[in-house]
């Protein structure tokens, strides 16, 4: 541990010389050194490393590692799970979308909120009652454990890695911009800290990192929204009037414009954004950290509240950005209002912080954005490590006979490996346009993980063959359609015309997965299929009551 801590602090201390170098050599590093940002961020890192040290002493068993021993309260978990979802990309990306497209950005926020109530209504209780460490526990409850775990672990890992790449590249660029720390150092810093949190502190540390960060983010977002809104006398009408008056599209930003122009695209996007959430492994995993179904429900209610509130705030930030930032030459390259924004359009929220609260607010929000990235990648790394060690190692390779100590050891090794891969991919994908990876992560989550999970929970007739056919169909079709979509076929591969015209595959790939799972299960007349149908009753009683969970979780 000491060595890793040392590496982390070296990487962090390395900040100062590189800062100076970046300033001297590279005039395009746009932000001046912000000591508030660096101080607050250092405090965050010190506090979270302290928590990791404390958590490391309490993380002995596999249950401690994966689920914090099931001892997280509904409120704490609500904050943590909301934190997992509210990444820096959410704060910066949605603010910038509202800034550029007005109401379209708001529709985007609504769509990415919608999975939360659905998660409560359809899944929160059953997740807690049926699962133990990973969502693969649930899909393999009455189906063939080996085949189902391999598929669920692969679906989970793919989503985790796509998400991680996006976060790492975003982290590198953002930190370079905000702190002047060179891209590769930034990626290494994030990767090393993430590995330390997860490998030593497991879910206990990861949860507390996430809780602190979510509180900071909610506080920072609220403060910024209040400062912004205050300039318009807390009158939404004045804010929209000011935004419409200066935006190049004028009153058109008050209604839907391009995002959902095509109905098929709109429906496909809406399905993916909503149901993708229900297949994100790092989100699902959090529902195993609470003691019972009642706390699980409570966490979903809190998380929905925090996220809904935060997304509503973001709209004020976006509109405020139009009214305040878009007219100020200080925030544009060469002072050219309407030209390129310093640091790119994703910087609107940060420029707004500077405009409304000065360098102190900018520093605070920058530090929060950095902390956010760290917390989100940690949650992802833990979910990935759990898929490797609990699903693939303990239950597939060792057929459930692995000792707890060896499972925990494999988790730690897997975390370090994931950390190294994440750093490597972050450096490899530097400067790439990765928007498609988000579509891909949500597309796969909605088309492969979600259909198999929900059918295994609710449909007696699902068989192993059906689940495999559905899951693989969803995975393959989502990947294929994204490759053929404009985001990859045209923007990455450079072909003139996309074969699949929509950016989001969910309408097609998710339907295909459900249809395939249904047809194959229905035509599966094997002996095993009959046994799987018969075992639904046991599963149903436990899904409803949680009865037998403690006893059953030991096999």
């Amino acid at each position, binding site marked *: 541990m000491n060595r890793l801590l040392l590496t982390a602090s070296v990487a962090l201390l390395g900040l100062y010389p590189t800062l100076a170098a970046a300033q001297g050599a590279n005039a395009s590093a746009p932000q001046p050194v912000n000591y508030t940002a660096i101080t607050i961020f250092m405090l965050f890192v010190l506090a979270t490393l302290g928590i990791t040290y404390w958590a490391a002493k309490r993380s002995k068993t596999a249950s401690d590692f994966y689920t914090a021993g099931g001892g997280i309260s509904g409120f704490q978990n609500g904050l943590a799970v909301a934190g997992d979802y509210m990444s820096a990309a959410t704060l910066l990306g949605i603010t910038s979308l509202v800034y550029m497209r007005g109401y379209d950005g708001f529709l985007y926020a609504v*769509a990415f909120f919608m999975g939360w109530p659905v998660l409560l*209504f359809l899944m929160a209780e059953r997740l807690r009652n049926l699962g133990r460490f990973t969502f693969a526990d649930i899909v393999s409850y009455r189906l063939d454990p080996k085949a189902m775990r391999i598929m669920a672990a692969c679906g989970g890992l793919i989503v985790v890695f796509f998400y991680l790449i996006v976060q790492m590249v975003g982290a590198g660029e953002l930190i370079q911009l905000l702190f002047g720390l060179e891209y590769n150092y930034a990626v290494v810093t994030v990767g090393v800290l993430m590995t330390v949190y997860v490998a030593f502190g497991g879910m206990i540390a990861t949860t507390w990192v996430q809780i602190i960060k979510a509180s900071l983010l909610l506080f920072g977002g609220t403060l910024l929204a209040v400062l912004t809104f205050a300039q318009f006398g807390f009158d939404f009408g004045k804010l*929209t009037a000011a935004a419409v008056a200066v935006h190049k599209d004028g*009153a058109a930003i008050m209604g839907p414009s391009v995002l959902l122009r095509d109905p098929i695209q709109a429906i496909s996007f809406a399905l993916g954004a909503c149901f993708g959430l229900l297949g994100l492994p790092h989100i699902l995993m959090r529902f195993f950290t609470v003691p019972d179904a009642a706390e699980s429900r409570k966490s979903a*209610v809190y998380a929905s509240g925090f996220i809904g509130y935060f997304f509503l705030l973001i709209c004020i930030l976006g509109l405020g950005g139009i009214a305040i930032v878009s007219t100020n030459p200080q925030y544009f390259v060469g002072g050219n209002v309407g030209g390129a924004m310093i640091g790119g359009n994703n910087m609107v929220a940060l420029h707004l912080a500077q405009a409304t609260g000065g360098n102190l607010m900018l520093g605070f929000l920058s530090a929060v954005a950095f902390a956010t990235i760290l917390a989100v990648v940690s949650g992802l790394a833990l979910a990935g490590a759990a898929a490797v060690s609990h699903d693939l190692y303990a239950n597939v390779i060792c057929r459930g006979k692995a000792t707890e100590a060896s499972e925990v050891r494999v988790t730690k090794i897997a975390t370090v490996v994931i950390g190294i891969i994440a750093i490597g991919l972050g450096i490899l994908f530097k400067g790439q346009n990765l928007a498609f990876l988000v579509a891909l992560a949500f597309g796969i989550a909605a088309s492969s993980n979600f259909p198999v999970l929900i059918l295994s929970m609710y449909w007696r007739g699902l068989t192993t063959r059906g689940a495999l056919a559905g899951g693989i169909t969803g995975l393959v079709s989502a990947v294929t359609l994204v490759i053929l979509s404009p985001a990859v076929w045209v923007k990455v591969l450079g072909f003139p015309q996309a074969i699949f015209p929509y950016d989001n595959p969910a309408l097609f790939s998710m339907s295909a997965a459900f249809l395939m799972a249904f047809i194959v299960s229905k035509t599966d007349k094997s002996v095993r299929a009959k046994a799987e149908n018969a075992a639904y009753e*046991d599963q*149903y009683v436990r899904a409803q009551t949680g009865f037998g969970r403690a006893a059953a979780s030991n096999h």
Partner: protein
Amino acid sequence: MSDPINVRIARDPRFQAIASRRNRLAWTLFAITMVLYFGLILTATLAPAVLGQPLTPGGTTSIGWPIGAVVIIVPWLLTIFYINRANADSRAMARVVEEVTK
């Protein structure tokens, strides 16, 4: 195959009543959420002008903003309604399980 205790719980009419009541509640609230959500999405794509019209004559704020806020806030209120009901049902169900298994 099935655990005999689970069979007894599953066949208990009180368990069945509570379970089906809660399932019905969950699916109903899910359906309301989806109607609101796809109502907004389909309006945005098929009749965008509806959402773009001003809230008050001569004002700039469009009706789309409060409608979007409603589509976030109402499902959230439904989640609160749901846990109140589900918690009561869970307690009732725990009593049934306790009786059946003792």
